[in-house]
């Protein structure tokens, strides 16, 4: 079934590419095997075939088949169909091999390998040892495990607004959002979408893993306008708290333990406590840093400042409860 369908679609592509004139549905039916006799069944099948060809990116044009009557016809312009001339050097072909494997088992993995095959099909210059076995080097990977990625990418690509539910950090209730998406950002391995939040009437950034439930398209293609001069990267960046390192912690750390603190902390033996070192370190946020220090348990004692000392005690008491 599927094989015959592929054969029929391939025949249509070959036929319409070789014809300068627009061919009517009837002419296509006469030339291509596999369409049913019955008229309604044929029409339905032909509609599905056209849709499938367009989904593949085949530029199916419609026009008047003859100057005299109004019959609609179809053709594929060779210029619109064919990939322009391209030649790959062996090192470019090697890089192409690495790039085509960057997207992991994700929405765009198939697209990347499909594109790489088209480029290799067009150019024989890239063949050779380098292309067959990519040189050692750096191999980045991008994963998109978040279910929201697929529909959001589609929305960004086609400039369509979306609605979704979002559970903000530290909240227990999700809120419904309508967003005009401007772009997606992968920051330290996590995906974010940035855009104009219609409810908040301001630009907003959402982490994809905090989007719960389905993402729905909420408007036609092209209806999202990205304001001139928008750099999505800046939106995501603003959203981080800057690290100031303007406070100094003074710590007593068990000698031989906690290499991370010893390494950069300029340790000095504590004369009052044999087997312990005195270490000072800069930090930015006392709450965050207290959590970091609590991690080391009884190997670290905070001597000051008091706000940090109290925060660590609070963490430890919390773990005791």
């Amino acid at each position: 079934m599927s094989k015959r369908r592929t054969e029929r679609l391939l025949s249509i592509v070959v036929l319409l590419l070789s014809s300068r004139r627009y061919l009517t549905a009837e002419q296509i039916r006469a030339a291509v095997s596999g369409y049913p006799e019955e008229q309604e069944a044929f029409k339905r099948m032909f509609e599905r075939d056209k849709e499938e060809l367009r989904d593949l990116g085949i530029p199916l044009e419609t026009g008047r088949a003859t100057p005299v009557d109004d019959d609609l016809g179809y053709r594929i312009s060779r210029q619109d169909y064919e990939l322009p001339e391209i030649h790959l050097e062996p090192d470019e072909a090697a890089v192409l091999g690495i790039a085509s494997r960057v997207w992991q088992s994700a929405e765009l993995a198939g697209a990347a390998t499909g594109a790489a095959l088209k480029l290799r099909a067009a150019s024989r210059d890239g063949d050779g040892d380098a292309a067959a076995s990519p040189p050692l080097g750096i191999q980045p990977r991008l994963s998109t495990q978040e279910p929201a990625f697929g529909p959001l990418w589609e929305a960004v690509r086609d400039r369509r607004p979306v609605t979704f539910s979002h559970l903000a950090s530290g909240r227990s209730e999700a809120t419904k959002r309508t967003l005009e998406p401007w772009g997606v950002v992968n920051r330290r391995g996590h995906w974010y979408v940035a855009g104009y939040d219609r409810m908040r009437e301001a630009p907003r950034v959402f982490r994809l893993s905090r989007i719960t439930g389905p993402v729905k398209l909420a408007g036609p293609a092209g209806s999202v306008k990205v304001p001139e001069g928008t750099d999505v990267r800046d939106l995501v960046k603003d959203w981080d708290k800057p690290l100031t390192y303007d406070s100094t912690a003074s710590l007593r750390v068990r000698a031989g333990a906690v290499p991370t603190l010893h390494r950069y902390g300029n340790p000095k033996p504590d004369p009052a406590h044999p087997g312990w070192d005195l270490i000072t370190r800069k930090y930015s946020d006392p709450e965050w840093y207290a959590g970091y220090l609590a991690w080391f348990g009884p190997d670290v004692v905070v001597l000051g400042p008091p706000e940090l000392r109290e925060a660590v005690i609070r963490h430890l008491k919390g773990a005791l409860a």
Partner: protein
Amino acid sequence: MVTSAERLRRLLALVPYVATRRVVSLPETARTFGMTERELIDDLNLAWCVELRAPEPYCPIDLSYEDGEISISQAESIARPLRLAADEASALLVALRMLAEAGGDRDAVNRLIAKIESAAGAAGAASSQVTIQQFDSPRVRRVAATLSGALTAGRRVHLRHYVWSRDEDTERDVDPMRLLVVEGRTYLEGWCRRAESVRLFRLDRVVEVDVLDVPAEVPEEAEPRDVDAGLFRPSETDVLAELELGPEARWIAESYPCESVTELPDGRLRIGLRTPDTTWVRRLALRLGEDARVVSPPELADDVRATAAAALAQYD
């Protein structure tokens, strides 16, 4: 099972691939297209069977395969591949920009980006709406550059590496295999001569690296890890630690590999972590304080309380 659309897409690249080269090796072509030789032959037969019945019956595609070789003598109108679709061009361009950023062969990457942008035209435009931000500290970048040099030169390296789960530094010789960027972090994959197996080393935990005057010898049996299946593969014998997280600690579920994540009332979560060594889970519980509670195993919950008590005793 591929759909008819996917198969058509493959055929529209396969026919030009052979036509551009006139003669190609059958096994090599199957490898390039990620299919078995049987599947490739089925595709070739399908293309060969295409027949147009009107106005005059004829077969537009003429090809043959024998002795492990394929040749095409006539491919007609489909001798050139189809243009790149928006998803295809964007997927490749984003990947290439990430590769350039990560320190790949920048010259070749930039040439290829320019060629693809020009071939894709408007189809590549959407790629500018995807941004990848990699944050390696200058120190990690230096380590990466040193290791990249060792890889190119095929040399063994000596690493001083911080083992986070045990909070200790270790020394080891490693034969580098490749550098990976996964989930926003850079890793060295190599044959660890101490563990005698393939290991991944996070570059931000490499304290020191020395390139040795010894050639790297990666043994035959050293298989690169299938990182696409996930970096952490827990084993059956690992302990399952279950934690209940308050709303403030939900980020843990996004930052640590959880076996299970269950929503509880009031924005709380229950997560399952599988690990060979629970030391770090104990530390994690101390770090989270009142925002987390160890549910099981009970020994671990006792351990957390005992450690917290011992730490608190020092503040008396």
